[in-house]
């Protein structure tokens, strides 16, 4: 398992290098820094950007919005997913609502949220609305997947409800929750930044992107885009680390079977 992880890391690194090379060749042959800046000028721009105190606030506020929406969807998704997993009727009654959330174009949702909640809160709710169905569906599947026989066994041995939740419910659902968490975060993060472009709070990556577009500073626009991708990547790495710690038994048994 270790070697395959190393191998996939190597392949990812090579593909990133190839993308940067293609970008470099394209910008070199296009020969117009203003429209298609080279990768190194983006890096220079990012370094300049970091030195500005405004950037710090921009990053902190957008991160706060992204994480707030994500945590909100995590908590509500776990609560509703669990209840729906236990009770068939609640699952059925939540189904139409989920279908509506999933199929409504998020641009129209953002516009509505803007009217209802104002510029600061809109990105949080927009992020929440796209992440929630993913977390909910995964928790629902996880809850359905719990082995009832194990709960029966625990009851015979006189185990209390809190110990059952801690030792059976959470470990059963954890692999399902984590399978949803990484994709829920990255989609929620993209939508948060996207809705910042529309709602334009004072400090926001989306607002900076919009301004760059307004002044046709394509190098700045790309610098903010790369920053957004990097933050998303780092948080996904963090989620994977936490997952590895929590569902360790799964990895250990799997690696042994390979």
């Amino acid at each position, binding site marked *: 398992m270790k070697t395959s992880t190393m191998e996939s890391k190597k392949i990812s690194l090579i593909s990133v290098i190839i993308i940067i090379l293609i970008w470099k060749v394209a910008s070199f042959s296009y020969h117009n820094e203003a429209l298609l800046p080279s990768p190194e000028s983006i890096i220079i721009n990012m370094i300049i950007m970091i030195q500005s105190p405004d950037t710090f606030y921009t990053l902190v506020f957008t991160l706060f919005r992204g994480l707030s929406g994500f945590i909100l969807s995590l908590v509500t998704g776990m609560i509703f997913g669990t209840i729906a997993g236990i009770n068939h009727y609640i699952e059925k009654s939540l189904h139409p609502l989920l279908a509506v959330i999933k199929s409504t174009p998020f641009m129209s949702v953002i516009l509505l949220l803007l009217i209802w909640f104002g510029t600061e809160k809109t990105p949080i709710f927009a992020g929440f609305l796209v992440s929630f169905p993913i977390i909910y569906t995964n928790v629902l599947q996880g809850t359905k997947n719990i082995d009832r026989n194990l709960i029966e066994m*625990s009851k015979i041995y*006189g*185990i*209390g409800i809190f110990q059952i939740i801690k*030792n059976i419910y959470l470990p059963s659902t954890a692999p399902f929750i984590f399978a949803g968490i990484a994709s829920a975060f990255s989609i929620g993060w993209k939508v948060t930044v996207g809705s910042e472009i529309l709602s334009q709070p004072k400090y926001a990556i989306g607002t900076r992107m919009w301004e760059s577009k307004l002044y046709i500073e394509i190098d700045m626009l790309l610098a903010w885009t790369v920053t957004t991708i990097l933050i998303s990547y780092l948080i996904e790495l963090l989620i994977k680390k936490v997952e590895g710690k929590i569902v360790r038994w799964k990895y250990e048994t799997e690696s*042994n079977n390979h």
Partner: protein
Amino acid sequence: MKQNLTITDLKKAYNNQIIFENLSLSIPLNQITCILGPSGCGKTTLLNIISGIEKADSGMLEDFKNFTFSYVFQDSRLLPWKSIQDNLEFVLRNKYTPEERVGIIGKYLDIVGLGAFKHYYPERLSGGMRQRASIARAFAYPSEILIMDEPFKGLDIKTKKHIMEKFIELWYGDKRTIICVTHDIEECLMIADKILVLTKPPARVSYEDIIEIPHDKRALDNFSLLCVKERIKEVFFGE
């Protein structure tokens, strides 16, 4: 002091199917009672009613109310995310101090021959080893009645013989009351002190017998055991 636990006039039905109608039987304390019966005669239901997992429609079950149970299921029912040691730890947590638990878990895992595997996750063990862990868990738990639902089903002959020997060894440790259901006559002859044979539903006791030969002296070619076997077969196939 009571010598027997009794069930009187037990009734249980699922929808329109009557499983038990006026079933009465008695279970001797501190002995191994084996309940034999054809598939679908309600053996597991009977165990579930005794242990309180299911409710009877009516009948007297007072004798079983204040007992604590441990259970060996057909499948091992170990938590896959816990090592064998932690699986035992999980059920013993409310019963013993941490120091006591270490000693007890070590002792029972050693008896069933899993001492060296205590840090293994269940998935890494064979079916027979998992069942041994389940038996160790049931004995390590300080229950007054141990219930076993076809505990040796699906094991190969060699493993089965080995596990049955371990089971008897464990039972001699504290001689607790054991109720074991099975459909295997030979298995029953090797471990039971008392045998009860149930009929097809609505089930009643069609035969009962007591085997007084000590466990270590029993062999399947023993004359009196052969006689019991023949009688059980007659009841089984004579219906």
